[in-house]
């Protein structure tokens, strides 16, 4: 397969769009053709959001179909389970151990989903606590960059490129914290190579 597909799945407001933007720019910097797709608008008000980044020699479609993604980076447990359909068998699955209950659950209209971790573990998930690592990096709002670090282990890009693009893309005052966050994320998930 000459095109690699990465899906970043999360909840509106979790920073998947910025993470997707960084990833896409890293792929461009490394000489790939790239397409990125995201949905703006209504869904951003706390709904489910998927950002898709595809890179390779020539990329046609910006969207992902079920069974096509090589990497699924889930920012939240329920969204991990929901977006699992996109990940092909053998793909790399990184899951943040955070649960953001949707409103129907918050208000008691629907029951809490059961413990999703065993089901995700059975699918080969590599778990991490992105928020805790972000705090450890001294940058509590950089959980999305921690998750990029976790994604980076499975992707064919130089650490230097990642660091340069992150530094360009985040607010100047937060560069150091974000770079630490990236480092912690990649160390936490130094396992699980995507089978080609």
């Amino acid at each position: 397969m000459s095109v690699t597909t990465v899906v970043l799945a999360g909840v509106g407001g979790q920073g998947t769009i910025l993470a997707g933007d960084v990833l896409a720019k890293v792929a461009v910097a490394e000489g790939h053709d790239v397409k990125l797709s995201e949905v703006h608008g209504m869904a951003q008000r706390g709904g489910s959001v998927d950002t898709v980044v595809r890179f390779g020699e020539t990329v046609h479609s910006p969207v992902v179909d079920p069974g096509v993604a090589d990497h699924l980076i889930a920012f939240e447990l329920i969204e991990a389970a929901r977006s699992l359909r996109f990940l092909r068998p053998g793909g790399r699955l990184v899951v943040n151990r955070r649960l953001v209950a949707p409103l129907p659950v918050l208000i008691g209209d629907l029951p809490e989903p059961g413990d999703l971790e065993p089901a995700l573990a059975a699918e080969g998930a590599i778990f991490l606590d992105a928020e805790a690592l972000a705090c450890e990096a001294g940058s509590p709002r950089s959980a999305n960059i921690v998750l990029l670090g976790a994604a980076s282990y499975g992707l064919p890009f130089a650490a230097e490129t990642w660091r340069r693009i992150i530094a360009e893309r985040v607010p100047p005052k937060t560069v150091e914290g974000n770079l630490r966050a990236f480092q912690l994320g990649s160390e936490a998930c130094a396992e699980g190579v995507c089978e080609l």
Partner: protein
Amino acid sequence: MAPILMSGNEAIARGAWEAGVAVGVGYPGTPSTEVLENLVGYESVLCEWAPNEKVAAEVAGGVSFGGRRALVTMKHVGLNVAADPLFTQAYTGVTGGLVYLVADDPGMHSSQNEQDTRNLAAAAHVPVFEPSDSQEALEFMREAFTVSERFDVPVIVRMTTRVSHAKSLVDVGERSEVPPVPYAKNTQKYVMMPGMARLRRVDLDARLATLTEYARECPANRVEMRDPSLGIVTSGISYQYVREALPEASILKLGFTHPLSDDLILDFTSRVERVAVAEELGPYLSLRLQVLGVEQVETGLPAIGELSPVTIGRAFGSVVPPVRATIPDLPPRPPLLCPGCPHRGVFHALGKMHAVVTGDIGCYTLAALAPLKAMDSCVCMGASIGMSHGAALAGVDSGPVVAVIGDSTFAHSGMTGLLHMAYSRSAGTVVVLDNRTTAMTGHQGNPVSGVAIGGGAAPAVDLEALARALGAGAVRTVDPHDLAATLEVLKEEAAADHLSVVIAKAPCALITRDHKDPYAVDEEACTKCGACVRLGCPAISRDENGRAVIDTSLCVGCAQCVQVCRFDAIVQVGPSCDFGGAS
């Protein structure tokens, strides 16, 4: 210069700028909004948000009439509003190039309906370009201005959500300065009364005929001959899906889709054994092939929603990739009103009143969902007001009928409805949710908020004076975070025998910097009654024992929940260092 990663909308803005556009004007609407938000960042272009698409299209028409190039932007439903000027601008033609950027939303990611702008364009007799990625968005935009002036006609560039919001690499160019055309009075061309319009109608057909010639040679249309056993006619994002799904297929890739060149189509279809059409929405291209008597493969591709590489591959017998077993019983995650949203206070009151709420379009439409469930209709921008008047005429009396409309929506198309209610001696009630912004589409300024397109100050209309001038018998402003006051005023005005306008005024929680310390629940005092939970605030949930808990990292201290708690169980606490969502 190295290629740049750009969204389709960014590339459209760039293309318009390179084409020497003098003015960009539009009304926000997903997925078109970022075009103008980007264009405003370029030098030598004046940009404006108009109160609605019809005004925007007329302003752009005026710029063209005045001899400069103009871009007008909108989403698909915006073209319904702007259809009136468009249909006659097709007759008058242009002086400076006039281009409409219209973004369709197959799959209704952020829209109340699905429309194919190509059909409206055909009805209006205007040409259409359809880019399939960001590079084409830029190039077609430049070509659209050339075509507009060369053929004396407004041109539509039709985008769809995936083309507007997907990013891909773009080679950019430089700006061509286009000198203004000096004004010259020309009533035969620009005064469309019947005698002149009849002549322009005939002329329009002649222009369309030359455009059909152009379609034959247009650089946006191309034939890609590969395996001749299957030929696909396609346009827009569907082209990308076909390339991915059927790499061997021959393709007629149409970037200029109105008027179509029958010669070009027949030439292609005669060179391949089997012909199929791949298009979203439609049938548009496939209808033309049918008219031409071209036999098409029955693909079964849906005319509703979006296509994808796998949908197209499946239609032609490709192997569908295996998928993993799904994890069952996942709760859906609908979008919701933010913590501290001022709209919540109004819908809480309307729920208590068992009002029949004719709603409108904006963030507040989310109040139709559980737990507030306080909206009974939502049709199109401005409809809340006419709907409430009509419902009253029909004798609806299961509760007070109340129209609810956002500030931007009121300026867009609510004012005329209110004028009609006054004129018709209505004693109805209209609530204007004045959150000081156009929130749903990403916080654009509007004539009520007094914020201009670049974020600078603009004159703000006096909403109370405006409502009075339109004929409201009573105009009252309330703070929607004050639940008791809001309920009282709404009850009084719903019962009154005059036309009332209630302005619920408090800034959107995402634009105000005036956040207070968060609240927390006193476990001892909480009786698990659930009153606070029923506000539908994402910061409030129940713990495993049924007690309310407030996520202090989300709470912005609006205190609406404090007012519904009868047990004083919700107390203010200091700021926490809990994890927030990253941004």
